[in-house]
């Protein structure tokens, strides 16, 4: 087989998604830094333009990990297990970014980097759950058992997402309600701010898709290599 022809380092679709993601992100950054200050938060609102996008992609990535986990249990195809793990890894990465953004926003707003109020507590649980997901994957050597256990964990983990999202409504505390309030169908921002947030959200989503695709390719090649070695 002609390996040089088969294994191109980065395929055109992945490259296109990456470039599109970074191009839209550059536009999003311009809009974020030219949007007017918030009447209460001032320029601190700029943190939310990336914080909300990162949180959305973390939710999305964990949800996609659950979808691939279900597909794995249904079809027993190891490719779905690899994609589930890839999506969970990216979700954890963006969850980390969400926590950093939230803490940097909380310090000047609330006076502390962290407090155990419902939104932050459920975010910590969500993050800890997916750290546990990877500890579980590393603890099991048998690939089939590992994939099944990880699929069960990925399905269970997604339960945390609506709890985390709804925590600001169920237990009213110091965290502000959702910027995009899908419960009451309201957006608590003016147009230039919404525009900055949506463009950044789109950019981060495109980058997530690119990351997932590339990570999936890497995992597939690594698995093929392992099969070849055995």
């Amino acid at each position, binding site marked *: 087989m002609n*390996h040089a022809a088969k*294994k191109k*380092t*980065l395929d055109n679709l992945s490259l296109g998604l*990456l470039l599109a993601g*970074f191009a839209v*992100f550059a536009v999003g*950054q311009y809009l974020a830094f030219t949007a007017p*200050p918030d009447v209460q938060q*001032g*320029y*601190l609102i*700029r*943190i939310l333009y*990336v*914080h909300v996008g*990162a949180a959305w992609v973390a939710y999305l990535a964990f949800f996609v990990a659950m979808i691939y986990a279900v597909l794995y249990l249904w079809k027993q195809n190891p490719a779905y297990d690899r994609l589930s793990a890839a999506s969970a890894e*990216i979700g954890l*990465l*963006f969850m*980390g*970014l969400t926590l*950093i*953004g939230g803490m*940097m*926003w909380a*310090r*000047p707003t609330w006076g502390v980097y962290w407090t155990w109020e419902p939104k932050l507590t459920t975010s910590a649980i969500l993050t800890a759950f997916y750290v546990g997901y990877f500890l579980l994957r590393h603890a099991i050597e048998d690939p089939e058992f590992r994939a099944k256990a990880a699929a069960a964990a990925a399905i269970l983990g997604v339960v945390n997402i609506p709890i985390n999202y709804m925590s600001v409504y169920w237990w009213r505390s110091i965290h502000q309600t959702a910027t995009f309030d899908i419960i009451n169908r309201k957006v608590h921002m003016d147009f230039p701010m919404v525009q900055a947030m949506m463009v950044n959200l789109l950019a981060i989503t495109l*980058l997530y898709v690119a*990351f997932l695709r*590339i*990570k999936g*390719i*890497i995992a597939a*090649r*690594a698995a*093929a*290599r392992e099969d070849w070695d055995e």
Partner: protein
Amino acid sequence: MNSSLGIFVTAVYASTYAVLLGYTAYLLWRLREVEGED
């Protein structure tokens, strides 16, 4: 912008750029590595 607030905004944007560019670089490095293993 108040300079003390600017530090927090800068920290968030610096972390975001570091994560996005760093993870892209990591993926490209891993992609090249698994390619080399074939």
